[in-house]
């Protein structure tokens, strides 16, 4: 649920306008955090953005919504918070142009996806510092990132219900919402959500296990960059190739 496909016109304007403003501010902060990034870093984050888009092409329908594998967690670990948020915004923008999610919801979508990605690296580093293997740390970071995004997603839905005047006053609509939020539907959605988080975490596990064997220098290290022998999470200099 880390990616909203809610189209234009269904969320109240207060919500999506606030989302656009917040996303823009977050983008400025992200750009500030990654200032000094050269073309090499931009090319690397664009390649990971391309992989995110490609992976999102495999949707798993869940009632009215779609669960898409996003790789937000692993991308967040590999790139760090600032760059991962930028990638999330770019991916969301391209998806909106392709009719996957509305133009007006770009801000909310980027926030939900990007916030999840941004939480991944700190969780990963903590797990590595606690002597977990990179694969296990990546799985934990991916799970936390997915759960966090899902919570934000629920907050967006809750806020949209609260801010829609029609929904607040009409008895029949309230009944409809009560039915949808009722035990069985909620239970099914919760189980599907957990399954989706588990699948994405296992995918992250496999990804990190592979990278730790083949290119451990691409994974971030808990050792400070200055003294780290390898693995600062930054792409190595072109001269090393």
């Amino acid at each position, binding site marked *: 649920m880390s990616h909203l496909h*809610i*189209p*234009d*016109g*269904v969320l109240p304007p207060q919500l999506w306008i606030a989302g656009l403003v917040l996303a823009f501010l977050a*983008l400025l902060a992200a*750009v500030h955090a990654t200032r000094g990034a050269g*073309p090499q870093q*931009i*090319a*690397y984050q*664009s*390649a990971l*953005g*391309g*992989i995110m*888009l*490609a*992976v*999102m*092409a495999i*949707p798993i329908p869940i009632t*009215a*919504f779609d669960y898409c594998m996003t790789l937000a967690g*692993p991308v967040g670990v*590999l790139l760090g918070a600032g760059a991962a948020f*930028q*990638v999330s*915004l*770019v991916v969301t*923008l*391209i998806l909106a*142009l*392709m*009719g*996957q*999610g*509305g*133009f*007006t919801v770009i801000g909310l979508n980027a926030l939900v996806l990007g916030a999840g990605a941004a939480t991944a690296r700190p969780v990963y580093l903590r797990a590595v510092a606690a002597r977990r293997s990179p694969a296990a740390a990546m799985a934990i970071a991916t799970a936390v990132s997915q759960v966090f995004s899902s919570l934000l997603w629920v907050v967006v839905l809750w806020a949209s219900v609260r801010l829609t005047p*029609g*929904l607040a006053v*009409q008895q*029949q*609509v309230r009944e*409809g*919402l009560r039915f*949808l939020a009722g035990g069985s539907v909620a239970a099914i959605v919760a189980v599907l959500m957990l399954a989706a988080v588990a699948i994405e975490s*296992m*995918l*992250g596990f*496999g*990804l*990190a*296990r*592979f990278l730790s064997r*083949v*290119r451990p220098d*691409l994974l971030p290290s808990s050792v400070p960059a200055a003294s780290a022998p390898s693995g600062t999470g930054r792409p190595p200099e*072109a001269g090393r190739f």
Partner: protein
Amino acid sequence: MLNTFAQIDYLACSGRTRWHRASALGKLVLAMLLVLLAVFMPQWRVLAALLVTVIALVLSAGLPWRLLGAAMTTPLFFAGLFLLAHWGAGAASIATLAMRPVIASVTALWLVGTTPYPDLFAPISRMLPRVVGDSLFLTYRAVFALLSRIERLSRAMFLRGALTGPLPQRANRMGEAVGTVVLSGFDRSQRLYQAMLLRGHSGRICGCRHYLEFTREDGWVLVLGVWSIAVTVVFAGWGAR
């Protein structure tokens, strides 16, 4: 979804209608106008008139019926929960809620189906920070190469039986497969970086300036803009009487 990406990209580049010849900036402004009218207009009559207008736009741009059908049904699927929540709120309310995302989605189809991506991204990238604007171009460029790699990889995995067995094992293998794509993306980003340096990258991918080349066909875009506003005013007034 990514086959659709490729199809739309081809249609945008190969089309010869008046909409394809109009400037990207004009079309972008018209698309934004149509989306904002759809999102903010509460009368179903206005939305019905706008829906007919955007369908006519898509058909006159020579875009396939199949894409039009997808653009009209996909947002309804994603807006399903919201439509269900409004089920008891009356036919006009449901029609309004259903038409808004459809208008926005069909408008997006018209925009991306008649505008090659460098022209479309060039004005958008100018509104974004440099890093993000560059990422927009490079991410879109990376998608197609990475997608074909993912497709080849998943076919090979299927043929070698890697997609059978318990779910955790399959997800783990998928993760390793994604790892190889990440490595390929990383290598690709290195090549891209070197190509950028060789071609004298000046610190910004500017895109082309075609988007600013106004042609005679922009007159039609202007006519459509005036028509959309007139239709909105007339039908909104009619609904108010």
